[in-house]
């Protein structure tokens, strides 16, 4: 839980990955939260995840009152996401109550109230000692009860009763045309309103979330993409929230002696990010592979994201220049994750990224090449995603290496994405390929290295059976810096 001097009231972790960060700690404890969205946008799952993680991670029992799905359907539907509601019910931490209202068998005459719902809810809350409650979707009552006057008054009473009861409640509501919810529930639940949205952009389905209102608390105001995958809902807070990570003074080798020697401290700081740019065929991947081997030599796991080569292809190609990935793949020190950039939306890549970070806990991450992500997102999106990614890696003190393909005329006309990444990364190495006198001259130049002096001269190298080999540049090749 985060303590923020401006947020005086306590907060309850939402159980949704990434959401607490946007909400500065989570939902308002003991108060209702309204989640609204159209059909199929994940409202129910949102509620289930809030309860399940409340039980599993924070030892806060919960009550799920369903006005639509039966308890059986509900538990079947979320089972595929790894939520076992039956087991939680048996352990006495969860109570699912399905309120079924069959219009055809009900007649209304005279005065009534919804006290029975209060009693059911109260009984359920007390029976498991619930701290969290979900009402999904309370608006179904409008289909079963004719007297809206009574219903509205009772809902208002219900929400304030829940507040008095001190349980943190998630109320889901169907998105209306004019208002956030069809029945204007936002009038009653005014503390915190979250809007879910599901739309298709460029043929890629994207889910987005926005915090419309959060009384008394700061919150992120953007639309944040979220995903539903085998781990449930994850929100990606695309904009960076702070720059508070610690900075390491430890130096790690790049894996290339000559490069280490060109840097005043004999390597890069741990947890720093390095950008390797160059046009096609300038050995960016090979250089990244050297970084990977250096990490492996330190017995530190490496996560290699390959967007252009399959793992087998990468292993074979590296083998041809004497870099043997295979034993390290087997020993678990090296993990290669390959995928086509266009196969998934940008969010999906980011989520896969986070999941892999969680699972593998690498000390070095390589993205090869980061420029191919541009094909699936607008430049601003890619940039936002990278900021987020870099922040995460920094926070975890993971060394990052990104390669980026640049056009050969790059020096005249700035490449947008490269510009964006280069300003974010701590170090920038540019690789070059010149043909002169029928000979190929490969050069490496350190463009920048934050926090340490470096050799600004371009250095010539060759690709040999053992990877990079630096050579002493001869006089006539001094103009290779372009």
């Amino acid at each position: 839980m985060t303590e923020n001097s401006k947020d005086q009231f306590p907060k309850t972790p939402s159980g949704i990955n990434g959401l607490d960060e946007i909400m500065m700690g989570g939902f308002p404890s003991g108060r209702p939260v309204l989640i609204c969205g159209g059909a199929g946008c994940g409202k129910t799952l949102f509620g289930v995840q809030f309860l399940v993680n409340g039980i599993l991670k924070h030892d806060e029992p919960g009550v799920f009152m369903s006005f639509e799905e039966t308890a059986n359907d509900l538990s079947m539907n979320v089972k595929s996401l790894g939520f076992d509601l039956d087991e939680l019910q048996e352990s006495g931490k969860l109570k699912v109550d399905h309120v079924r209202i069959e219009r055809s068998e009900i007649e209304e005459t005279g005065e009534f109230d919804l006290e029975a719902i209060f009693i059911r809810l109260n009984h359920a809350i007390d029976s498991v000692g619930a701290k969290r409650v979900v009402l999904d979707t309370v608006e179904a009552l409008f289909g079963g009860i004719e007297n809206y006057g009574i219903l509205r008054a009772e809902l208002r009473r219900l929400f304030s009763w829940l507040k008095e009861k001190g349980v943190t409640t998630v109320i889901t509501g169907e998105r209306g045309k004019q208002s956030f919810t069809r029945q204007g529930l936002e009038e009653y639940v005014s503390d915190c309103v979250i809007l879910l949205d599901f739309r298709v952009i460029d043929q890629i389905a994207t889910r987005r979330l926005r915090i419309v209102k959060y009384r008394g608390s700061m919150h992120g105001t953007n639309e944040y993409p979220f995903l539903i995958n085998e781990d449930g809902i994850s929100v990606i807070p695309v904009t960076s929230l702070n720059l508070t990570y610690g900075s390491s003074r430890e130096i790690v080798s790049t894996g290339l002696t000559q490069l280490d020697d060109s840097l005043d401290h004999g390597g890069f700081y741990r947890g720093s990010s390095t950008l390797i740019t160059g046009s096609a065929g300038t050995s960016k991947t090979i250089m990244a592979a050297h970084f990977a081997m250096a990490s492996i030599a330190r017995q530190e796991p490496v996560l290699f994201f390959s967007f252009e080569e399959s793992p087998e292809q990468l292993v074979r190609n590296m083998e041809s220049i004497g870099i043997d990935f295979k034993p390290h793949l087997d020993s678990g020190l090296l993990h290669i994750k390959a995928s086509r950039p266009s196969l998934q939306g940008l969010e999906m890549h980011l989520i896969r990224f986070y999941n892999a970070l969680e699972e593998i806990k690498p000390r070095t991450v390589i993205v090869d090449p980061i420029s191919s992500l541009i094909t699936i997102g607008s430049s601003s999106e890619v940039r936002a995603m990278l900021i987020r990614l870099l922040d995460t890696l920094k926070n975890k003190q993971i060394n990052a290496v990104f390669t980026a393909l640049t056009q050969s005329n790059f020096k005249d006309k700035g490449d947008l994405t490269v510009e964006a990444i280069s300003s974010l990364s701590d170090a920038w190495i540019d690789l070059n390929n010149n043909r002169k006198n029928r000979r190929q001259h490969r050069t490496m130049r350190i463009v920048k290295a934050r926090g340490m002096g470096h050799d600004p001269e371009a250095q010539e190298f060759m690709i040999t059976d053992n990877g990079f080999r630096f050579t002493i540049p001869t006089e006539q090749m001094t103009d290779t810096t372009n």
Partner: protein
Amino acid sequence: MKKEKKWELRLYIAGQTPKSVIALENITKYCKKHLTDNYNIEIIDLLENPQLAEGDQIFAIPTLVRRVPEPLRKIIGDLSNEEKVLVGLNIRPLDK
């Protein structure tokens, strides 16, 4: 005329609220009038037995449930409209 089964009704209340008292008075009156002795009214106070609300899917108070004859019927409210209650329970008025 075939012999009818005994009517089984249940009235769900939550404490002795005016609405519940009126509902009980009303249903007793209608039953005496139209079902003579062929009925039984069970009163369930949810304040005492909250766990019983789930079984009959009770959400409103007061709720009258017709359990026999089937199918199950529910009438919510203080039952002040006699005609509606009779229609709802499908009771044929005797005085017609």
